[in-house]
């Protein structure tokens, strides 16, 4: 638990050192989750294979390997942990103009939940009814389940449910009203094989009037330099092989997609660029959605 023996103390010391060197390095890093092959043809045309999966098996094994360090505050997921509060701020800003019913509690669906960083935090909020969190990688879900047992609040029945499934295999709500108020897709899109069919699959899970919230990375030369070359190859603060630049999706591509998508309010789209500034943490950057990490939100029509 706490460093008692010298070897342990040394390990924790080394962790501290790792952390401090991380903080001094410039990076807009980025971290992962689910999915697949192919290049970035952003299309909604479904593949011809029967029940095609958007999950990439190589991504699954990559995240299995990362699982053990998921909750280490100084481990490879540190930047995701630090980013998490911003996700809540962004969701709050999206919902700011929604008519609030005080007694109404929110149902979340977190897709590609990983070790449960966002899922746990959403489940702790006082205005949360329930969180369903799914991920196709069995190893990280085991970590998520084990970590959940450390918090009695999360163990309350129905508050936080993990499912080892892909979005394709998640039963679609029988009526739209049974959907979720908030469907989240954080740092997932850049790892999926075919984003068009993938997004198509998750749309029915959003309740009318609810929000689809995601974060990903723009496919620009800056993001290639930062997330692939700097973060993975040069600095090594993000595990190698985490990112495939060609899979990245740009903000205007998403915007264009939802402008044409029936049942979705293209005018509700909100996006926000964010950047990790060493020493200061994650900061909002206006216009950053065009060249780096960004949040994206769109509302389903009532």
């Amino acid at each position, binding site marked *: *638990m*706490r*460093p*008692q023996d010298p070897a342990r103390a040394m390990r924790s010391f080394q962790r501290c050192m790792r952390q401090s060197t991380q903080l001094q390095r410039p990076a807009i890093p980025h971290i992962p989750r689910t999915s697949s092959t192919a290049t970035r043809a952003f299309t909604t045309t479904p593949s011809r294979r029967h029940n095609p999966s958007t999950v990439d098996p190589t991504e699954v094994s990559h995240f299995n390997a990362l699982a053990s360090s998921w909750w280490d*505050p100084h481990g490879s997921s540190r930047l995701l*942990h*630090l980013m*998490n*509060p911003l996700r*809540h*701020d962004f969701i709050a800003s999206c919902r700011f103009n929604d008519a609030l019913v005080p007694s109404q509690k929110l149902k979340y669906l977190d897709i590609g939940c990983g070790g449960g960083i966002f899922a*746990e*935090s*959403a*489940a*702790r*909020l*006082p205005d949360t009814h329930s969180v369903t969190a799914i991920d196709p990688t069995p190893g990280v879900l085991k970590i998520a389940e*084990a970590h959940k*047992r*450390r*918090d*009695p609040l999360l*163990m309350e029945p129905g508050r936080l449910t993990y499912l080892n499934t892909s979005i394709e295999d998640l039963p679609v709500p029988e009526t739209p009203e049974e959907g979720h108020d908030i469907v989240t897709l954080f740092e997932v899109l850049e790892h999926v094989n075919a984003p068009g069919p993938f997004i198509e699959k998750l749309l029915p899970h959003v309740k009318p009037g609810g929000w689809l919230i995601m974060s990903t990375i723009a496919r620009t030369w800056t993001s290639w330099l930062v997330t692939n070359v700097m973060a993975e190859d040069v600095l090594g603060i993000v595990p190698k092989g985490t990112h495939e630049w060609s899979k990245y999706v740009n903000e205007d591509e998403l915007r264009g997609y939802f402008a044409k998508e029936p049942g979705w309010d293209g005018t509700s789209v909100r996006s926000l660029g964010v950047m990790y500034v060493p020493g200061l943490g994650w900061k909002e950057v206006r216009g950053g959605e065009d060249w780096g990490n960004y949040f994206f939100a769109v509302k389903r029509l009532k």
Partner: protein
Amino acid sequence: MAPRLLFRAPRALSARPAVVVRVRPGRRFASSSASAPEVYDVVCVGGGPAGLSLLAGLKASPVTRGLKVALIEGQDIQKNRLSKGASLDSFSNRCSSLTPASVRNLQEIGVWKHVNAARVQPYQEMQVWDGVTDARISFDWDTARPLLSPRNPAQPTTIAYMIENANTVTMLLSRLEELGGVDMFTSTKVSSIELGTDTENMDFTSWPVLTLSTGKTLAARLLVGADGANSPVRTFADIESRGFDYNRFGVVASLSIEGQGWGGPEHKIAYQRFLPSGPLALLPLPGNKSTLVWSTTPERAARLKALAPEDFVAMVNAGFRLSTTDLEYLHTLEKGQAEEVAWREKHTPVNERAVPMRITDVETGTVAGFPLRMRHADTYTGERVALVGDAAHTIHPLAGQGLNQGQGDAAALVKTISHAVRTGQDIGSTLALESYNSERYAENNAMLGVCDKLHRLYSVESGPIVGLRSIGLRAVDAMGPLKSFFMSRAAGGS
């Protein structure tokens, strides 16, 4: 006490808390009959000003109000409460100087409205001088303004507020009663703190589980150590606290002086004379009362405490007036200081307006001494642990910052917890607590360093340093903006 200590790992035994701290991770599977601990979000050990301020801050904010919190305090805190109509002829010898920043925070969390205002004394001026060279610096907001700039009528004139610690604790308790929602375990000791176990449903292996002297057990999502310099919580968290003893005692006493002070009731003045053995300070209380803090060697402190009231009074008056050579001699006398001082004062020219008005009396039973230490914990946070106040740091009292640092800690921890709650973080996780540590550690460390350096600087009796420090003091005194900077720092920043 010793047999109750149970340390499984080799560790420094400098602190000897009367609490069993088992550090071995509990990996036992609790199949035994032991009833499950009651789960709390925040368990605060220690009901001093820092701990109570933290709880009031948490309960005053709509974001954190819903947290389940408990206070554990070994003493009956109600007993030390100040009664409403307490006589203004008598003051406790435990007083502190609250900075405007601390008062602002207490106002924000709705505590200050419960203060017994008649017993609080704001002061507007500070006179500080070198006991060896008489080089002097005076602090007041008026002379500290930038050169040639007009006096700003909106500029606050108060440097700090003298207040009895009992008054601070009483207003905090009143506010907590008004807010409700804190489970108070008072007159209750913590008999052990250990990590929880992995049961069938829950993994409490990262949670501190406290067993109280009543037998009750509490599991803490966040355990706050507001339990003083020998903090058992800090020991549990295996956080080292480093520092040293100054080999000095602080002698305190409640005094009466011959009038309201040279500035009258509306312009009170605090005095501090740096003597080679330590600073001698007289701080104003309401009416003709004042409180004394005299830092000196343990031998001199013991002798001061043993003096008859008239001799003690004479020594304090002499401390502000006579030369260090005279004082050295007076400290060697077992009695008869009153006569000796009267004779020597005749031969020492003193500008009476530059020193405090004469002390006429000392309140019986208020002369006390405590050892001065400097301690700083290596970190203020661990997994599910945060330290506030003296548990985190002990400071030389010469700048009167100890209580204010604790109040600053409490306010910062409330802010950190509040951000964690709003964003769904586990408030006990090291990640959530990081901002508290980074914000407060640097701030407190700087203050500890400055006070320590001042102490050392003025311990020197001869040589070039004495000349240099006098030049420095005079230079700062002549420079309004620089003075303003120092005053802002002492006032808690603004």
